[in-house]
């Protein structure tokens, strides 16, 4: 069978992939630049085909709590939003993490703070990888750099979320959400049956059947010793994820004298930068974290003694650069270059910055 290649926006690819990967429900609220996700789902009418529920909620707060509700019943549920909306979702995300439920959250970032701008940005890095909501929790964070990855990371996000009973986030930005590229949509996989949910997710709230204790989904535990125990269990799980689920891409890193660390749309731009640099005889490599949490600390650390300098190029004032610096722990110079407020730098602008800051 030949692959079916389509041309579509990153946001649309997410919607198509959600239906195809057997998602049970989507709950969202419109906000630029990601509204095409829900629009596409509504147009696809998956409730008539796969049985997937799609609902426009009254707010981002309601939407994420719908996700919490649905996830508690063992269903594969998701929401999407953009930065200001994701801020509103933090309450629910913290509860989902605290109750150890799987779900997928898509953040197509725009510039902030506040209402900011509808133009692309990567300024929610801290919010995604350092917590965002209250409490000691972690969010599995995937950073797609193409429309193809927007499509592929839906199933990957769900798989990781269910594997670890933890919320997962696709952290994209307005460029990846809005740009059109060719994409091979993932193959259809059926939604889990009730029986599969019962056996694979014995914790799911499905109605207390005879012979088992009642299932309760909650993040509440007033006994401090037990609450600490819960937290230790979370942390053990996070360590496991850090060990097993780091994903990254290396382009031209083997012989590099300098390393760019960039994710998402910025990594795409930096691909051109390293081509231009190499044409000038400058050996620059690109290391693209695909998972922002867990962060590819080890691989970045391993380059600390091989390169003369690193630069973290981000659409923000310097967020991921902190994790790069933690990874190399002072062994090599680490600089940051970023544009703010929705401005996207050109490849040569990045090259100029590298020359200025590293050479």
């Amino acid at each position, binding site marked *: 069978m030949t692959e079916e290649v389509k041309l579509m926006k990153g946001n649309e690819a997410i919607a198509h992939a959600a239906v195809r990967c057997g998602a*049970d*429900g989507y*709950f969202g609220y419109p906000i630029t630049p990601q509204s095409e996700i829900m629009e596409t789902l509504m147009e696809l009418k998956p409730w008539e085909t796969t049985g997937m*529920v799609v*609902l426009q*909620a*009254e*707010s981002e*707060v*309601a*939407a994420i*709590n*719908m*996700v*919490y*509700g*649905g996830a*508690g*019943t063992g*269903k594969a*549920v998701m929401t999407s939003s953009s930065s200001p909306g994701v801020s509103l979702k933090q*309450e*629910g995300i913290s*509860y989902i993490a605290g*109750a150890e439920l799987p779900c997928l959250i898509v953040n197509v970032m725009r510039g902030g703070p506040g209402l900011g701008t509808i133009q692309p940005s990567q300024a929610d890095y801290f919010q995604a990888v350092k917590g965002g909501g209250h409490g000691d929790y972690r969010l599995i964070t995937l950073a797609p750099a193409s429309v193809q990855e927007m499509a592929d990371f839906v199933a990957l996000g769900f798989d990781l979320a269910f594997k670890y009973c933890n919320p997962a986030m696709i952290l994209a930005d307005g460029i990846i959400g809005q740009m059109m590229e060719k994409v091979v949509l993932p193959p259809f996989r059926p939604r889990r049956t009730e029986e599969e949910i019962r056996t694979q997710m014995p914790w799911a*709230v*499905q*109605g*207390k*059947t*005879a012979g088992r204790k*009642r*299932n*309760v*989904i*909650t*993040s*509440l535990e007033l006994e401090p010793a037990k609450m600490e125990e819960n937290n230790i269990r979370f942390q053990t799980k996070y360590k496991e994820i850090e060990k097993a689920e780091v994903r990254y891409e290396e382009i031209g890193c083997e012989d590099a004298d300098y390393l760019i660390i960039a994710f998402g749309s910025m990594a795409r731009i930096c691909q051109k930068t390293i081509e231009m640099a190499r044409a000038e005889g400058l050996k620059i490599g690109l290391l693209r974290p695909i998972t922002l949490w867990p962060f590819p600390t080890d691989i970045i650390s391993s380059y600390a003694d091989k390169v003369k300098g690193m630069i973290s190029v981000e659409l923000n004032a310097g967020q991921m650069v902190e994790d790069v610096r933690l990874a190399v722990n002072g062994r090599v110079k680490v600089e940051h270059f970023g544009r703010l407020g929705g401005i996207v730098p050109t490849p040569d602008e990045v090259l100029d910055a590298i020359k200025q800051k590293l050479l």
Partner: protein
Amino acid sequence: MDINEIIKPENLVYDKPRLMNDNPMHYCPGCSHGVIHKLIAEVIDEMGMEEKTIGIAPVGCAVFAYNYIDIDWEEAAHGRAPAIATAIKRLNPEKMVFTYQGDGDLAAIGTAETIHACNRGENIVIVFVNNAIYGMTGGQMAPTTLEGMVTATCPYGRDVELNGYPLKISNLVAQLDGTCYVTRQSVHTAAAVKKAKKALRQAFENSMNKKGASLVEFVSTCNSGWKMSPDAANKWMEEHMFAKYPLGDLKNV
């Protein structure tokens, strides 16, 4: 007649509901929550829906409702229960889904979720316990606190200039096209309890008959928060609460 001849299984006419477990309830002595819990447990059992019911517990005193009624539960963030119930019911339409919420939860922080779940006509039951105070957090003013009523955050009595008016949220909800049944009940006498149980049963049946959202408000006491004995709280409720929140059906279609 010897009492032991009366106390025989065949003569039993009333007992703790089967679905209410033996966990001691954390509620204060005389709290209305316990009676409402019993009614829910009885109705679910009588409908034979034990294996199909999912309850949404609130934040507030009833946060531990899941410890007492032996069904599956999800515990919601403050005010979000109707959103959670919405998704559970939409994703599992054959299940019987209800929320259990207090006045602060339902009529302050969760007003939007309440109004919109009702307006969408979600096939859920909202059990609304209105005791005009925040019980769990220590007796602060609720949206339904009566004018002049003293609470920890209106220590000189609710002043409408400062705090606005007591919110008759059930009347508001009754205006929405998505609701089929909105009723105000109480559990302060045996007669009221029997009536309230019928109302609850109807609400649960509505949800399974896909008639839309049903809201059963229980005008209740919080004798600790009101700083009264349970009996005095009931009398105060009859005199003051019922005047503002009169019992009876607000909507039944």
